[in-house]
């Protein structure tokens, strides 16, 4: 990836979705981290979101949302009321799609942005509005794809969402995918021109390595949404294979989602109700504490375009087991990789890490080094490189 620096500060309109502290998935974290580093490089960002804050402030980032004035922190109630999406239990004909359409109309009519260099849209939420905005402002559109509807829906995609993804992929001058695996999928399924595809991986912030809470207590950890595509059932089946051999080990599930009830019942049915702890949603701070106290981190996803939770675990020095299909597996050689359906292999890998301290230490070190080798600053430089390419492709001078 070429990383040409811009010769002057750019004004980027980022068409986003969530922003910390109110976020449920990796997209909010990504938007926050990449924006922070872009502003450090001297660029200015207007971040569009359908939600009304509060926003964790970043110097150089202005927030625009329906129903409120431009803000740098903001706590205005949202003008658009979002009913649950399918991943939170909604259905394709729920009013959720109407609400996102409202967001797109608002984007396309947005005024008062001043001179803009590039419009950068994340995933499908705002593609229709972003396309209209970029056309009106006569600037290039860049799209980042963090996951696709095929992946999120495990083979039962909503056509509405596929259409909106297609709009963005077709209209964008450059499309950024978070892994090579995802890049190929976008080419195969959405017929994207390979020449405009770029891969930029996610990264993690270096955090102080916290002391283990209780060195005698051993925790195997999963952190993430409880959705079918996350494969948490495989993790529970793996736990059931070895729980009896490791009575001192607690298998922790941190996160919330539509599969919650099913997973709790499954754990009970597998006879490991006592060995598995469901924590529900955890804050970032709680997650860091959990990581600090964990011996093993497991990411058993059936589908995982990137998997930033695993990179965060590695950055915390926790040896990690990934499904082979996860994007993060492309950037590490210091984690175990397992077929997502192979509960026995997950069980064996967990047991091996619990059993062999030398292995745990060596993998923890390697993972930490790999996760922190290239951070958000490098990713931001790569992103600027893509902006400049997109501008040059449209005959613009940076």
């Amino acid at each position, binding site marked *: 990836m070429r990383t040409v620096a811009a010769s002057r500060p750019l004004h980027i309109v980022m068409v986003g979705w969530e922003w910390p502290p109110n976020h449920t998935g990796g997209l909010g974290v990504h938007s926050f981290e990449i924006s922070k580093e872009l502003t450090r490089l001297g660029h200015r960002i207007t971040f569009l979101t359908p939600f009304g804050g509060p926003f964790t402030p970043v110097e150089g980032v202005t927030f625009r949302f329906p129903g409120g004035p431009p803000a740098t922190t903001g706590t205005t109630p949202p003008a658009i009321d979002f009913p649950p999406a399918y991943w939170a239990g909604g259905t394709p004909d729920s009013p959720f799609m109407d609400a996102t359409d409202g967001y797109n109309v608002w984007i396309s009519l947005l005024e008062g942005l001043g001179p803009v260099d590039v419009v950068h849209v994340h995933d499908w939420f705002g593609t229709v509005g972003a396309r209209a905005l970029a056309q009106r402002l006569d600037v290039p559109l860049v799209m980042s794809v963090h996951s696709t509807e095929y992946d999120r829906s495990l083979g039962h995609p909503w056509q509405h969402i596929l259409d909106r993804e297609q709009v963005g992929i077709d209209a964008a001058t450059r499309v950024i995918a978070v892994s090579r695996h995802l890049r190929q999928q976008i080419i195969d399924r959405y017929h994207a021109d390979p020449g405009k595809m770029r891969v930029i991986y996610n990264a993690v912030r270096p955090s102080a390595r916290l002391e283990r809470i209780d060195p005698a207590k051993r925790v195997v950890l999963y952190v993430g949404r409880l959705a079918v595509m996350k494969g948490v059932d495989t993790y529970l089946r793996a736990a059931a294979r070895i729980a009896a051999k490791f009575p001192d080990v607690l298998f922790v599930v941190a996160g919330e989602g539509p599969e919650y009830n099913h997973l709790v019942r499954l754990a009970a049915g597998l006879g490991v109700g006592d060995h598995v702890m469901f924590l529900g949603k955890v804050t970032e701070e709680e997650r860091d504490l959990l990581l600090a106290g964990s011996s093993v981190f497991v990411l058993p996803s059936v589908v995982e375009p990137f998997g930033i939770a695993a990179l965060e675990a590695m950055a915390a020095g926790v040896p990690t087991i990934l499904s082979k299909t996860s994007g993060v597996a492309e950037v590490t*050689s210091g984690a175990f990789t397992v077929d997502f359906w192979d509960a026995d292999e997950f069980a*064996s890998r967990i047991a091996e890490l619990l059993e062999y301290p030398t292995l745990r230490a*060596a993998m923890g070190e390697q993972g930490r080094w790999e996760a922190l080798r290239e951070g958000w600053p490098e990713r931001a430089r790569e992103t600027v490189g893509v902006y400049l390419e997109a501008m040059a492709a449209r005959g613009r001078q940076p």
Partner: protein
Amino acid sequence: MKIVLYLHMHQPWRLARFRYLDLGSGRSYFDIERNLAIFRGIAERCYRPALDRLLHALETHEEFRLSLSITGTFVEQAKLAAPDVLDKVRALVATGRVSLLAETYYHSLAFLVPPPELSEEVRMHRDMLRAEFGVETKVLRMTELAYSDDLARFAESERFGGMLAEGWEGMLRGHPPTYRYCAAPAPTVMLLLRHYPLSDDVGFRFSSREWNEYPLTAEKYARWLGGTPGELIGLFMDFETFGEHHHASTGILEFLSALPEAVRREPHLGWATVEEAIRGPPRDTLSVPYTMSWADQNRDLGAWLGNDLQRSAFEAVKKVGIVVRETRDPAILTDWRKLLTSDHFYYMYVSGHGADQGVHQYFSSYDSPYDAYANYMNALSDLRRRALEKLGVPILK
């Protein structure tokens, strides 16, 4: 000037994926079919064509000489996968101009575990060579060309007349590597040294297009050999150099075929087996107080025991060895010895970012050193459990 061409033939018994959940299952640690499939592939690409060419060289050039070492695990696999490869070796030996060398039967780190493991394995290997090839060995090479004063004393106690070692400046202290030396603590043991620049020209650099001498022809190489001062040039390398490490399409087999004739045309060059080369007075004595090898930039045991994973696994296998010997169970002992094979530790090497990274990656049969370690430790834990069961010791946990 005599050229001592010595080629090492070895295949390890690679482990199957032996999961933690497989402990106590009675499953074999070794994936025999996979090992044999690998062997058949290498036999096709390397052993058969290269052995044929060497036999032809011996038939057409009466001055040509060759030395080989063949591990016990290699012979076991060859018998099952490609017995004709052994017949081809027998045909070479029958010319009377090919020496075989002794070593550990399992290509193992036996020299680092308490006695009597090393002498037993070397005896096993000598017995095997006698039975399979009708040969008495006089020269010893240790696994990965390991050498030290202690190993020289061992060679003397086992009545070997010579040993091989790396011709590494670090221990030569200004002596040229192109002479016969003798071991300081064991003067009856002659040392033949590997000329590593000339050996690696063929072993490593031959097919490298970035090398400024590429392509290497037999004529050019023979000129280099002819221009080298001294009495002996030790060209020691893996047999798999010819057709496996370097694919046939690189011209390596043609190079091998053309070498005897190119050497014949050089006025001062001839050939010697290791047994011929150890005859004659030594130029000087050499002392090596630490263990040296032929691997990597440091020529030490770092490739096998350099990191925490490797040392932990090796300490564990050493410890299990004590219980294993107690059992006097041949099956348990054999599995333990197969786990002592040095290759398993090589797979656990965590690459830094230096020149040796690619070499280690190439030889590994695992995705990562962590895979290699976990799998090895599972097999070893299972073996320990079997040994304890045999001894009637209750297993904790």
